[in-house]
C-alpha cells in the first residue's frame, strides 16, 4: 500500500515538474520580453532627446516624429552652450560638489566613528536624534536657512551653496553601519601602543573604509550636483548658478526652441552619467547598505 501510494505520488510529481519546465521556458521568455520592453521605454526618451538635439528648429515640427535628422547640426550644441555661460555653470557645480563631498567625508566619518566605536553618555539618544532628522522634510528648514544665509551676507557666494551640504545624516548612518563591521583587533593593538582615538580613526579606521567612503563620496556628489531648489533661491547672479539651475533658466529663455534645449540637456547629462558608470558598484552598495536596515 505504502509503496504504491509513493509511486503514484512520484508520477504525479514528475508530470507536474514536466509541466513546470514547459511553463518555465514560456515564463522565462515572457520575463525577457517584459524586461526588454521596459529597457526600451527607459532608452527611448534619451534617444529622442539626442536626435532632437541635432535637428533644425522647424524640422522638429513634423508628423510623424522623426528619429534621424536630415542633417546633424552640431551648431545647436555650440550655440546652446555659448548663449548662457555653461562653462561657468559647470565650474560652479564642480566646486559645490567638491566642497560637499570633502565636507561630508570629514564630518560624517567623525560622527559615524563616535557612534560606531566610542562609548559615551547619551550616545544612543543623540544617534536617535540624528536619525529622526531624516524624517524632517527639507521644505520646513528652507525659509529659515535662506534667512540665515541672508543674515550672514552670503547670498550669491559659494559659502551659501556649500555650507548647508557638508553634513548628511544619511552619510553618518552609512558610515556607522560600515564601521561596525570592522574588526576591533587592530584598534585594540593600537590602543595598547598608546594611540589616541583620533589616531585610530585617522590611521586605521579611515584607510580600512575606502569603499564606504567612496560610496558616500558618490552619493554626496550626486546629491549636491542635482540639488535644485536651494541654489535656485540663494543665487540670483548668473555666474553663481550651478548647472541644474542654469539649464532651467535656459528653458525659460528658450521655451520653444527644442533642439537647443535638448542639446543643453545632453551636455548637462553627460558628466553625471559618466560618473555614474564609473562608480556604479558603489552606488548599488550604498543603496543596499542603508536601504535594508532602514
Amino acid at each position: 500500500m505504502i509503496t504504491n501510494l509513493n509511486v503514484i505520488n512520484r508520477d504525479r510529481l514528475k508530470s507536474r515538474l514536466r509541466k513546470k519546465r514547459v511553463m518555465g521556458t514560456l515564463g522565462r521568455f515572457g520575463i525577457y520580453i517584459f524586461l526588454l520592453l521596459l529597457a526600451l521605454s527607459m532608452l527611448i526618451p534619451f534617444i529622442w532627446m539626442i536626435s532632437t538635439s541635432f535637428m533644425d528648429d522647424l524640422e522638429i515640427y513634423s508628423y510623424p516624429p522623426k528619429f534621424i535628422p536630415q542633417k546633424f547640426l552640431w551648431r545647436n550644441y555650440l550655440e546652446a552652450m555659448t548663449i548662457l555661460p555653461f562653462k561657468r555653470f559647470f565650474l560652479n557645480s564642480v566646486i559645490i560638489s567638491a566642497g560637499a563631498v570633502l565636507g561630508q567625508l570629514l564630518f560624517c566619518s567623525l560622527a559615524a566613528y563616535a557612534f560606531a566605536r566610542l562609548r559615551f553618555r547619551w550616545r544612543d539618544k543623540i544617534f536617535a536624534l540624528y536619525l529622526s532628522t531624516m524624517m524632517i522634510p527639507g521644505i520646513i528648514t528652507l525659509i529659515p536657512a535662506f534667512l540665515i544665509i541672508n543674515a550672514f551676507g552670503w547670498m550669491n557666494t559659494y559659502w551659501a551653496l556649500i555650507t548647508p551640504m557638508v553634513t548628511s545624516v544619511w552619510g553618518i548612518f552609512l558610515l556607522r553601519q560600515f564601521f561596525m563591521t570592522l574588526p576591533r583587533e587592530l584598534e585594540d593593538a593600537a590602543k595598547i601602543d598608546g594611540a589616541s582615538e583620533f589616531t585610530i580613526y585617522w590611521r586605521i579606521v579611515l584607510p580600512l573604509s575606502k569603499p564606504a567612503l567612496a560610496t558616500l563620496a558618490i552619493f554626496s556628489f550626486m546629491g549636491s550636483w542635482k540639488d535644485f531648489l536651494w541654489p535656485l533661491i540663494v543665487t540670483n547672479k548668473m555666474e553663481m548658478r550651478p548647472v541644474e539651475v542654469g539649464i532651467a533658466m535656459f528653458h525659460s529663455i528658450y521655451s520653444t526652441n527644442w533642439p537647443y534645449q535638448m542639446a543643453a540637456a545632453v551636455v548637462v547629462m553627460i558628466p553625471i552619467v559618466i560618473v555614474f558608470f564609473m562608480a556604479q558598484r558603489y552606488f548599488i552598495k550604498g543603496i543596499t547598505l542603508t536601504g535594508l536596515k532602514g
Partner: protein
Amino acid sequence: MLFRSYKKTVFLLLFILSIYIKTEILHAGNSITLRVANWAGAEEVILEKQIAAEFMRMYPEVKVRIEPIPSNYREKILTGIAAGKPPDVLLLDSVIIPALVNKGVLVDLMPYVERYGVDLSIYYPNVLAIALRDSSLYALPKDFTPMVMYYNKRLFDDMGIPYPEDDWTWDDYLEIAKRLTKDRDNDGVIDQFGTAFLNTLYLWQPWVWMMSGDILSPDGTRATGYFNSPETEAALGFLIDLRRKYKVAPHGPALSAVGGTGGMFYTGRIAMIESGHWWLPILKKYIKSGDVDVGVAPLPRPSDGEKVTVMYESGWAVPVGVTHLEWSIKLAVFFSGKKAARIRARSGIAVPAVISVAEEQVTDDPYGLEKVFIKEIPYARMPWGTKVDEFSRVEVIAKDAVDEVMIGGKSIHAAFTEAARFMDQELLKLTRKEKAPAGSLMKSTQIIIFIGISILLVVTIGIVGFILSSRKQRRGILTGYFFIAPSFIHLTIFVFSPVIFALFLSFHQWNIIVPEKPFVGLGNFKALLNDRYFWNALKNTAIFTLNVPVGMAISLLVAIAMNQRIKGVNLLRTLYFLPSVSSFVAISLVWTWLYHPQFGLANYILGFLGLGPFGWLSEPSTALISIMIMTIWMGIGYQMVIFLAGLQGIPEGLYEASRIDGASAWQRFWNITLPLLKPTTFFVLVTSVIASFQVFTSIYVMTEGGPMRSTDVVVYHIYKNAWDYLKMGYASAMAWVLFLIIMAATWIQFKFMGREVE
C-alpha cells in the same frame, strides 16, 4: 575604481579649486564694473553684450557685465535693491515700473538729460511717457511693441481669401477663421484651425478695450463693475466662443505656453495668431528659408467699437544707491541711444523707441511687415501692469476665470463676478501694503540671535552631561563630543533651530523687504483655512502621492523578474537606473518635449495602440498624471535595486520547502516573498511618500503649477509665496502644516506596517 586612490582625487579637486580662486582674485582687480540687469531672451543677450562691448571700447576703464534674469525679474530686482546690491543699470518693463517708480527707488534722470545733452525728441513721445512722472524721468526708453495679428499667407491663398484689411472687423475675423478651419485629411478630426485663443491677459486686454470695457476702475482700485461689466464679458465671450462655440481655435495646446501654437502656425495648422513684435525675427528667418509666408495685420475691431491696441514697452533705469552713479547714467544713456538701438535692430525683437531707427527698420524690411507696427502706435494704450503694482496677481485671477468658462463650462457672468470679487480682495491687500515704506533689507539679526541661543543651549546641555557624569565617564564624553561636535553644530544651525524658527516665522507677517514684521498669532493658519489655492495644492499633492504605490508595484515586479537568474542583469540594471541618476531638470525638459500635444513622441507611440491624442501637460485633467508617469519612470531603477537586494536576502531554502509542499507560484509570492520583504517595502514606502510630498523640480520646470493650477503642489505653492510674493511668514505656516501632514502620514505607516518591522 574611480576612488581607488582618493588622495589623488582630493588633490585634483583642491587644485581645481585653487585655480578658480586665483582667477577670481585676478578678476576682482579690475577697476570699475557695471552690472546691467535685463530679463532678456537669448538672442537679445548676445546683442546687449555687443552694445556693452561698444561702450567698453569707448571707455576702456569700465567693465560692463550683462546679467539676464529670465524668471521672477520683478522680485529679484526688488530684493537686490532692498539688500543694497542693485544692478547699476536695469531694464524696466511695464510690470516692474509701478513697483519701482512709485516707491522712489529710481534716480530721476531729468537733471542729467540736460547735463549730458540727451535729445529726448528722438523718441516716440508715448513710449517716452511710460516712465515720465510729472517732470521726472525714471527711464530712457529702449523699445516697445503693440499687439498685432499674424497670418499665414499660404492658407489664405489656398482658399482664395483676400488678406485682412487695415480696418477689418471682428465679424470679418470670425468669418475668415471659420473658412480656414478644415479637416485636411478627411479623417473626421479638424487639423487646421482658423485662429488660436490663449487665456493670458496681455493678449486679450486690447480686445476688452475695443468694446469699451475694462479690467479695473480708472484709478486701479476696484474690479467689480469693470471686469464683470457687460462690455468686458462681451469681448471675452467673443474670444472664448472662438474655441467653445465656433471651434475655430484649437483646444488643448493653446492652454499652455509649451510652444504649441508656434509650432502649429509654422506648419500651417493655425492660420492667424495674435502676438507682439518679438515673434517677428524668428518668423522672418522662416520666411527667408521659404518655410512659411507670413503677413501682419492690425487687430480687428468690433464694427461699432473703437480701434485700440496695447503697447508693451521697456526702458533703461538707474536705481538709487549705485556705487558709480555718473557711470551708470552714462551707460543707461548709451544703452538707449541711437547706436545701441541700431545694434539691437539687427535682431528686431521689438520696435526701437528711437524714431529714426524704427523708420530705418521699416525701410530695411524686405517683407513689408514692420510698417504695420508703426501705424499702430497712435492707437496704443498703456497696459494695466504699468500702472498697478503686482498687477500679475490680478492677471492670474483673470486667467483662472477665463479657464473656468472655457474649460470648466461655467457661465461667463458667474465666473467673472466671482473673479472680480477676488481681484478686489487682492487690490485691497496691495493698497494696504503700499503704505509700508520701501525700507532696506533688515539684516535679520533675530535669526542670528536665535541660532546663537540654540548653540549655547546645546553646549550647556553638553556641559551639564559632563558634570553629571562620574570621573571615569568623563574622558569618554570628551572624546565622544569632540567627534560629533562638527556635525552636531551643523545640524543645530541648519536643521534644529530652523524647524523652530519656521514656527516662529509662521506666527508673523514676514515680508523680507518690509522692515515691520508684525506678530499675527494664529492669523496665518486661520488664513490658510480659507485659502482655496492652498487646499487645491494639498489636494494635488495627495493625488500626486498616489504615484508611490503604483511605482512600487512596478518596481517589485521588475525586481522579481530580475531575480530569476536571467542573463544581462547588470546591463539591464544600469539602463533602469539611468533616469534616476541623470539630471532631474534635463529629464523634465525631455519629457516636456515628449509630451508635446502635436509633435511629441508620447502621442505618436500611443497612436499605434489606438489611444489618444492626449493634451498631456496642456490639459488640467491630464497634467498631474503626466508628471506622475514621469516620476514613476524615474524612480523604477532606484526602487528596483532596493527590492532586488531585499529579495536576495530571502533564503532560497524557504522556497524549496514550500515547493515541495506544493505551493503555487502565487502562494509562494503571497506567503513568503511579501511578508519577508516587508522591511524593504516599508523603507521604500516611507521614503518615497516623504519625497512625493515634497515634489518641486519637475513642477517648476514643466508646468509652473498650471494649467488652471492643476499641478500646483504644496512645495511649489510655498516657493511661490515665499520667493515670488515674499510672504515668508505665511509660507512658513504652510511648511509647518505640510510637516505635520508628513509626520502623520509616516506615523500611520508605522502603525499599520511598521510594528513588526522595527
